[in-house]
């Protein structure tokens, strides 16, 4: 088809021919931050195409739970947990459940090959996707929190703390979601794990802990979303104990760092078969 014979071709490629003995100079690799930003942006744009209905579902679910719990809760103390729990459930639904599903499907459908044949650091792919999914939760979490405060007559003054709770709980839960999605041997299993995680966050998050039996409370303490719920619930107090709020957020941050590191390793493993 070509009229150019192969042996008189110009030698102006980025990677020079290394057949003469020395290996060729490699092309550039993508640096962490620019590629993370590129992955983040492309993931955000997927929301416009595919995720908006799912974000509505997450929000409606939480709003519905709060309305149902209205007849059950006893005083402002319990209402705090309901509102904080329902808000964090939005994060769990999107960051844990949907991200697990996404990575599960990406892996099963050969989508990881695309990233694995680009010179991009694994952390950029995992963190970019996790950050995007955490961002998807912002509108739903805010709507849920505001609606809940109005419904139960809680103060709106400390709503700003969500600016820290969403990213930290988001990091912890999306890290776990990514781990589930990348380690589960089959995509259905990844979806199942994500949904189980979300159900746990739902059941253990919105119910006031004082009424739980000891074993269930232990389980609640093991769930990273709990610390997001606790941090936010504490800020409704007349005089919040900010040290404890910080401690709760530190737990989220710790879980986030560890789970995202594990997810990055899982990604690396999943992309070379």
């Amino acid at each position, binding site marked *: *088809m*070509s009229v*150019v014979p*192969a*042996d008189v*071709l*110009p*030698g*102006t*490629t*980025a*990677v020079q*021919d*290394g*057949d003469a*003995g*020395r*290996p*060729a100079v*490699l*092309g*550039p*690799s*993508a*640096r962490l931050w*620019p*590629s993370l930003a*590129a*992955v983040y*942006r*492309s993931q955000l*744009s*997927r929301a416009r*195409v*595919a995720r908006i209905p799912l974000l509505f579902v997450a929000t409606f679910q939480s709003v519905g739970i709060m309305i149902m719990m209205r007849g059950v809760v006893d005083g402002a103390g319990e209402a705090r947990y309901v509102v904080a729990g329902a808000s964090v459930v939005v994060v769990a639904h999107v960051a844990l459940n949907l991200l697990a599903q996404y990575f599960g*499907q*990406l892996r099963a*459908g*050969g*989508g*990881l*090959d*695309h*990233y*694995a*044949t*680009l*010179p*991009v650091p694994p952390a*950029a792919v995992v963190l970019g996707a996790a950050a995007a999914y955490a961002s998807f939760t912002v509108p739903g979490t805010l709507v849920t929190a505001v609606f809940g405060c109005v419904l139960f007559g809680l103060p709106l003054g400390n709503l700003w703390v969500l600016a820290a709770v969403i990213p930290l709980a988001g990091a912890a839960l999306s890290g776990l979601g990514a781990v589930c999605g990348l380690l589960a041997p089959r995509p259905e299993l990844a979806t199942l794990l994500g949904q189980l995680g979300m159900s746990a966050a739902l059941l253990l998050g919105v119910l006031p802990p004082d009424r739980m039996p000891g074993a269930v409370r232990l389980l609640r303490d093991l769930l990273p979303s709990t610390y997001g719920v606790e941090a936010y619930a504490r800020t409704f107090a007349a005089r919040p104990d900010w040290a404890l709020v910080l401690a709760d957020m530190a737990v989220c941050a710790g879980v986030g760092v560890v789970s995202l590191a594990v997810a990055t390793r899982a990604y690396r493993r999943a*992309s*070379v*078969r």
Partner: protein
Amino acid sequence: MCTVRGLTKTYPALRARRGAPAAPEVRATDGVELDVRRGEIFGLLGPNGAGKSTLVRQLTGLMRPDRGTVRILGHDIVAHPERAARILAYLGQESTALDELTVSLAAETTGRLRGLSLRQARAERDAVLDELGLAPIAGRPLKKLSGGQRRLACVAAALVGERPLLVLDEPTTGMDPVARRAVWAAVDRRRAERGTTVVLVTHNVIEAETVLDRVAVLDRGRVIACDTPSALKERVADEVRVELVWRERAPLEVPEVAALKERAVESGRRWTLRLAPEEARTAVATVTGGAAFAALDDFTLATPSLEDVYLALGGAARQGLVKG
């Protein structure tokens, strides 16, 4: 440029599970040896399941071979699979990672992840989308496009960010002739301007004959021939392909037809025969005259194609190759 020696990969046997039957182990590539030269459009031709995708996944560092070596531009890809991403661009058979992006963002993001700056990535994106005629649908998500358009968008993503080696796994599947021509023109331009080398997987015989400089014919994991398409066809140049289509069934009561059956590859009402020119003339005379003619629906005589080469070399699949 790219040297492959003794490349072997066996997929382990799968135990039966609900919804999935048990599968025996499959030796998908079996001692494959290849030498791809710089600036060449090198093809891997074979029917479905021949091991083409498995082979290119090993070339691109995506899959570790059980045995064998892959050297590309002096780099050992088996020992350092991560280097492949900095030498080559790969177009896989799936587009899962890009499906929900717009054509434009798919190309731009891929360019950025190939190490381009935002400005470079956008400039190259625009150039490639124009080159492939994708500009009018640049704003549409891939999954809302037709199969051929989606494939073309994936080709665009593969071409953003220059690489000396392009590895393309069935790039033109589902494309209309205009899109195909755009792809081959884009590939050829890169080769003329920069000496780009292309490894191309195809099961399309016509495509193989028209665009490839050399082709390796794969069958059940083994390279059964490797040469230029015309040299391969030389091997069967003394033969003519006769295709007979019967109306309902072959008139086997005619002795000459019964004799032909021995040498025919049957596929429903269609018989395919490879015959010496003299035999072909006799065969055509038999079926177009006398009792056999009433049963004949259609017949063609053709010079051999790469498909005949594949069959003459002992290729096992009778219908794996596509002629169009």
